[in-house]
Every structure is written in C-alpha cells, then in structure tokens.
C-alpha cells in the first residue's frame, strides 16, 4: 500500500513541479555560492597584487625615510573563507573579508566599511542556507498539508481507515515517504555542493549536514502535529503558512528590532571621536609628555636611540599611539556591546529553531558576528605585531632598502573557535521531540475521527 502511495505521490503534477523548482533554485544557490567564493578569491588576489606593486614603489620613493614610508604602507589581513562559507554567506557580504591597516592609529581604521551595494544586502543572498531555511519548509508544507484532510474531503478516508490494520502506522508511513523524498533532495544538493565547491569532508560539514537534517525533521514534525489536529486542508494550509511566517519572518525580525533598540551602539561614534581627539590634540601639547606616555606604554623602546630626522617620527607615532590608548575605553565598551548583542541573540535563538539553525549554519561556515569579532581581534594583534616590528626601525631610521619589502605577505586569519555539537543540535532535537511527541499523542486520540 505504501508503494502505491509513493507512486500516487510522485505522479502528482504539483509535487513534481515543486521538486523541480526546489532543485533548480538549490543548484542556482550553489552557483551563487561558487561566485561568492570566486569574488573572495579575486578580492584577495587584488590585495596581494596591490601590496606586491605598491610596497616596492613606496620603498623606492621614500628610501631615506622609514617613518614616512610606514605612514603610507598598508598591511592586509584576510579573514579566511572556508568552502563551507559559500553555503551560508551570512554576514560575509556585509563585513569585508580583507582589512588593510597602516601602523598608525588602529581605532581610526579598524571599522572601515567594505564597498557594498546595499540593495544586494537588503534583498539578501540566494545561498544554500536560504534555500534550506526558507524554501525547504515550504516544500514540506506543500507535500504534507493535506495528507489526511484531502482523503477526507474526497470521501476516501473511511475506506483507508477501514482497510488499514494499523492506521497510525500507515499515516506515519505516508510522512516517512515524503521525508525520504525531501532528504534525498537535501543529500543530492549537499553532494553537488561538495563536488562543486570542493568542500572537505570534515567535522564542520558533518555538523552542517546534521543541522540541516535536524531542521528538516523539525518541519516534518510540525506538519505531523498540524495533521494530527484533523482540520480541513485550507485550515491546515493557513496554519502551516502562519507558523512558517512566524518562525521565519515575524519572530526573527521582531527579535532583531528588539536587539537593535535594546543595545544601540553610540559607542562606535564615541570611539572614533575620541581617537581623533586623542591623536590630534597632541600636536598642541607638550612633546616630552607625549613621548613619556608612549614610553610608559612601551618601556622597551626607551633604550632605542633616536635618529635625528627633519620629522620627529618617535613623537609622531607616539601621538598616533595615544589616539588608540585614549579611545581604548570607548572601544572596549563598543566591543562589550557587540558581545552583548551576540549573546542575547544566541540565547533568544535557542527558543526559535529557525533562528537557531540560521545562526548555527553561519557559525559553522564562519560567517557570523562571532567570526567578525574574532577577525577584528586578530586584526588588532596583527597591527600590534607590525607596530612592534617597525617602531625600532623607524626610531633609528633604519635603511629602507635593506628591508625585503616583497617578503611581506598578506596575513591570513583562520577562525579556529570550537563549536560544540550539543549546543548546535541540542535545541533542534528538543523541539523535534516535543512537536513530534505532541503530534503522536494527539493522533492517538484523533486518528479514528472520520
């Protein structure tokens, strides 16, 4: 009987159109991901190319003035994109994957925005995570909203009920059948993604797949529960679409509004203004005081002899340093505010599975705010490393041309923050158990309501 049910299911025109449509968009999303990866590569190639031509040119032009040279040179760090990032682009299109900084004040450069077309950002990417999170549920709803109600409306349900020895098992079978088709679709897309994007078969991918499977199971359990209410097809459709709307549009957007209003970030502007003031007012204050403050921050440079130069670079970079030092408080507050946002949205997301899935996919693909914050931290460390390397050379005005400028490669940040499978899958599994259990419980009462 299940075999016949399968044939009936797969022969229906609407189902086929749905499957073909989803497959087409799914494959498109992989190409969107592929293009995203290629543009990332291109961006990296551009910055390497620039560094390779700009460094020797600048070095030749400012060959007797190390301090002036370092005023201009921009060192770049790349936030490494994994092949998996192409499946869940997340915030990567908002936050640039390349940071280029001179060794001057960090706070004035750290937040420089990438070039973006806001219309693209507003409408969002058609990446795999979009297909999974938004479109798969719609397919599942279309497959299951009238499983029983349709039979009832056609008057065939009583025949099925009478002929079936184990009716709940039969209903379960109908759901499993559809689940199998949807899972096959998911696995097909993931397999294509692995081939197209060279995704390594590692733990991240397994967890990514696990989350995807969990999300689909969740939607099946929601549909199962709605079917157990034994309503009419159109009521089921409205109810399911309402749930979809709630989980994917209203609740997440509502939470977003809440977080934006609850945690505003005026600290961003405060940091920038403090940095500018901290640096610039030193032009008009006592020189030795500035340099002393600098030595208090970096005692190791007190011993370094200072070369006589037309420009007092030690003073200049001390001023820049103080711009950072004096805006450190605001910068820390900004950072804390962002962490609060991250924590709040994570906590809330545990209760909204769609949100949780999207955020976890982003986390696994290294495309969320967490990754961006870690990348900014790394940029800070990189900047510090460059400063410490060049400060003594600037103060002694070391000969520019003895430095091998082409040896300065673009640095890469690899995000290794651990991800716990339990915190990723746990909330999903709880929801699945809860909703499916509710459906099963309800079905036991209503299954013979003809």
């Amino acid at each position, binding site marked *: 009987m299940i075999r016949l049910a399968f044939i009936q299911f797969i022969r229906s025109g609407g189902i086929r159109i749905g499957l073909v449509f989803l497959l087409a968009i799914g494959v498109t999303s992989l190409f969107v991901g592929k293009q995203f990866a290629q543009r990332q590569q291109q961006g990296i190639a*551009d910055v390497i190319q620039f560094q390779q031509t700009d460094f020797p040119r600048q070095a030749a032009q400012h060959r007797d003035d190390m301090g002036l040279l370092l005023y201009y040179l921009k060192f770049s760090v790349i936030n490494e994109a994994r092949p998996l990032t192409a499946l869940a682009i997340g915030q990567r299109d908002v936050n640039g994957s390349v940071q280029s900084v001179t060794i001057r004040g960090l706070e004035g450069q750290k937040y420089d*925005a990438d070039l973006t077309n806001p*219309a*693209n950002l507003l409408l969002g990417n058609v990446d795999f995570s979009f297909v999974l999170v938004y479109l798969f549920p719609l397919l599942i709803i279309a497959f299951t909203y009238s499983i029983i109600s349709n039979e009832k409306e056609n008057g065939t349900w009583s025949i099925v009920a009478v002929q079936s020895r184990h009716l709940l098992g039969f209903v379960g079978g109908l759901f499993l059948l559809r689940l199998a088709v949807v899972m096959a679709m998911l696995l097909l897309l993931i397999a294509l993604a692995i081939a197209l994007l060279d995704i390594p078969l590692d733990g991240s991918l397994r967890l990514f797949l696990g989350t995807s499977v969990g999300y689909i199971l969740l939607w099946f359990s929601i549909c199962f529960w709605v079917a157990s209410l034994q309503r009419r097809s159109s009521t089921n459709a*409205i109810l399911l679409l309402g749930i979809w709307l709630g989980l994917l549009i209203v609740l*997440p957007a509502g939470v*977003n509004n809440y977080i934006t209003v609850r945690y505003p970030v005026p600290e961003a502007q405060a940091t920038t203004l403090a940095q500018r003031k901290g640096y610039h007012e030193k032009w*008009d204050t006592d020189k030795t005081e500035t340099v002393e403050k600098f030595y208090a921050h970096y005692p190791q440079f007190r011993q370094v002899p200072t070369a006589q130069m037309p420009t007092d670079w030690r003073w200049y970079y001390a001023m820049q340093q103080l711009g950072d030092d004096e805006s450190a408080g605001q910068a820390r507050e900004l950072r804390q505010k962002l962490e609060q*946002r991250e924590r709040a949205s994570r906590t809330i997301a545990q209760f909204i599975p769609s949100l949780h899935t*999207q955020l976890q996919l982003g986390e696994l693909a290294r495309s969320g705010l967490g990754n961006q914050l870690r990348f900014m931290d790394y940029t800070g460390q990189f900047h510090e490393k460059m400063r410490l390397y060049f400060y003594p050379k600037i103060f002694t005005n070391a000969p520019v041309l003895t430095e091998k400028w082409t040896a300065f490669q673009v640095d890469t940040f690899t995000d290794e923050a651990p991800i716990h499978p339990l915190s990723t899958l746990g909330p999903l599994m709880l929801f699945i158990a809860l909703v499916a259990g509710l459906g099963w419980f309800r079905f036991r009462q209503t299954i013979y309501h003809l």
Partner: protein
Amino acid sequence: MLRTQRLIARQVWATAFKNRAVFGLLIGIGLLLAYAAVTGWVSFRQQNETGRRYQQQARQDWLSNPDKHPHRMAHYGHFAFRPKAPLSMFDFGMESFLGNTIFLEAHKQNSVNFSEAGFSTGLLRFGEISMAMVLQLLLPLLLFFVGFGTVATDRETGTLKLLLSQGVSWQRLLVGKSLGLLAVMLSLYGPAMVVTGLLWFGLQSGQVSADQTIRLLLLMVAYFLYLNLFCVIAVLVSARSKTAKTALVSLIGLWLMLTLVLPRASQALGSYLYPAPSKAKFLADIQADVLKEGDSHNPGDPHYKGLRDSLLTAYGVDSVQKLPFNYSGFVMTEGERISARLYNDHFGRLLTIYNQQNRFSKAMAIVNPYLAVRNLSMALSGTDFASYVDFQRQAEQYRYDMAQKLNGLQIELISNKKPGPTDKPYQIDRHHWEEIPDFTYLSPGVARVFEHEAISLLAFAFWAGLLGLIAWRFTKTLTAI
C-alpha cells in the same frame, strides 16, 4: 442598485470577523504594527540623537583647536553623521545597511562606517519589522487568507448559482466582494496611516514642510492602491478557482513568488551578471590613476615639475621659495583637485555598476507590485540607495570645500620660506576655523523620487489599468459552477 454591492461587501466583512482565526490574525497584525511603530520611533530618536550629539561635539572639537598650521586642520578634519529622514520610522528601507558616520579629511575619501548591519548578529538578514513591511508583506497575505473563499466557497456550496440566477450580475458580485475585502483591509490600513501621520508630525517637532507632506500623501496613495490590488487579485483568483482550496494554494503560491522568490532572484541575477570591483581593486585603480596624472607627494613628479616651471616663468623667479605665496599650499590645491576628480569618476563608475545590479529588481516592478511599492516607499521615505548616494555626495563636497578652503588659507597666510630648525612652526589664528561652516545635510526634494522611481510609478499605472481590464473581461467569461 449599489445596494447589492453593499450587501455582498457587508457579507464578506461579517464572515471575515466571525472567523476566529482571521480575527486573531487581524489582532496579531495590529499588534505588529504597533510594535513596528514603537521600535521605528525609538530607533529614529536614538540614531538622530546620537548623530546630533556627536555632530555638535565634533564641531566643538573643531572650533576649540588652538592656532595651527591650516594643513594640520585639514587632517584634523570633520565628521558627517547621516540623519534619518522623518518617514524612516515608517519604512526602514535600506537604512540598516547604510553607514552613518564618515570622517572627512584632506586627500582622503573615507568610507561611511557603522552601519547597523555591520553590528548585526545575522538576525538582520531575516528582515526587520517596520510598518511598511507589515503593509507590504503581511497584509496582502492576510487579504489572501480572508479572500480566497469569497467566490470559490459560494461556488462549492452552490450559493453562487443562486445569486446569479437571482439576477446579480458578475460585475456587481466581484465589485461587492472586492469592496468587502477592501473594508477588511481598511481596518488595518486606516489605523496604520493615522499612527504614521501622528508620528511623522511628532518627529518633525512642528515644522512640517510641503515636501514632507507630499511624500506622506504619496505614500498613503501608493499603499492604498497596492493593497487594493491584492483585494482584487484575491477575489479574481477565487472567482477563477473550482474550489476554495485551489484558490488558497494558488494565492499562497502567488504571494511567495511575488514577495520571496522574485525579489531575491532578480537581485541575485543582477549581482551575478555585473560584478562590482573589490575595495582593494577600487582603491588601487584610483591610486594608479592619480599616480599617472600627478602625485603631489612625490617631489620628482613630472606634472608638478611642469606646474612649478610655468609658475617660475610667470613670476620671473628662479626658485619656488621666491614665489609671493605659499607654494606647497598651491601644490596641495592642485593635488586635491586632481584626486577628488578621479575619485568622483571612479565612484560614479561604481555607482553605474550598482545601478546595473539593481536594474532587474527595478524593472521587475512592472510584473511585481510588491517590488514597485517597496522601491517607491523607500524612495519616498528617504531610505533608498539614491538618498544614501546623495548623502555621500554632499559629504564629499563638504570635504572638498573644507580641504580647499584650508589650502587657500595656507597659500595666503603661511610664509613661503621653510622654517628653520629653531623657528616656531607656522600657524594661523584660530578664528579662521569658524570660517568653515558645520556640515548640514539637506535632504533632496521629492522631485528626485520621480526621477529615480519612474518605473515603479509606471508600474502602478500599469497594474491599475490591467486589473480593470481583467475584471471587465471576467464578467463576460466566468461561469457559476
């Protein structure tokens, strides 16, 4: 004979509110509208308050500078904070994806930083709840939920046959049903617009301009037409469908197509076909062009060598130190002129690419009323890309004028002799800082909206016409069973 239509309309209204689920949905959407209004209001206040506070502080910092060399001031620079337009509390538009702080200094065009999106956890990508979003996205779906059965249920139950045999014409029936649905729509649209009007008035602190009034009125008209369209679509699809279930499924499919699939797909197509340069490439290209034309920071640059020689000949002197004005100020004026022009060229080209990327979703407005109302609403609310570009251009103009003013002061007031190692550094009096006005953003007039959103406006006319035509045709071809 209007009575028949009224009767039918009242029946639609009564059925809608008798249905508990629909009633619940109406209340839900009403609450969402209220939530949207509150958050829109609060974030408008927050951002504009922050902007105003720091704009003032930045100005005070600027004015409190002591006597200085003008070029020091050119690097001290100023900030421009992007203010939100009053109607942005109604339609957030692209607001959250746009930066709101830009540092303006000599020789350097900085990026507009601190967009809400940059600080978002990724939640933002699910969208935001603004009143516009509720009216554009959720209310049409509600209308579909209420309206899918208007004619199809009558057909299923056989009431339709009765109605028609009693002499009610198709035309009256469809008009009546549409009017009923319209009444349901107005029960949310009305309060939403009243609230919008009140907030809009409150946010302008009593100074209401004609421009803003036109914007608000146009918004009201646009949304009214848009929602009307969905009432009629619901009734027509219901009239065409054999069963209420088919009508519902078709309407849901249509809604998903119009609001979810087509907008994303058309934008994705645009950005797929017209790749924009990376930031590194964009900046490298500008630098390459500047170096080609003349690098003011390079003493051996041929362009500036030519400039120097012609100056020396004109003034009949043999070295730049003997010129009667500050030569390095002159060089910087020239450098600023060249680099700003080249930057604007490249920026213009970048905007062309972005416009190409947006081309599909703009053109789609013709077939998709959702995109039409969305684009038009953002433009009228001042939260679209064009308004943002306008801000960037005004900020850049301010930056350029500030830099050139200070260069001018340097040419005029700073000695042309290099100071000796023991000399006091050259300075000018601090009262000059006041000669440069503060940055104030002037929002462009509503006429600009007509320029940018011609397609959307056209789309509205087109849809209104088409619907009338279809309704007229349907009255001739529809059947009762």
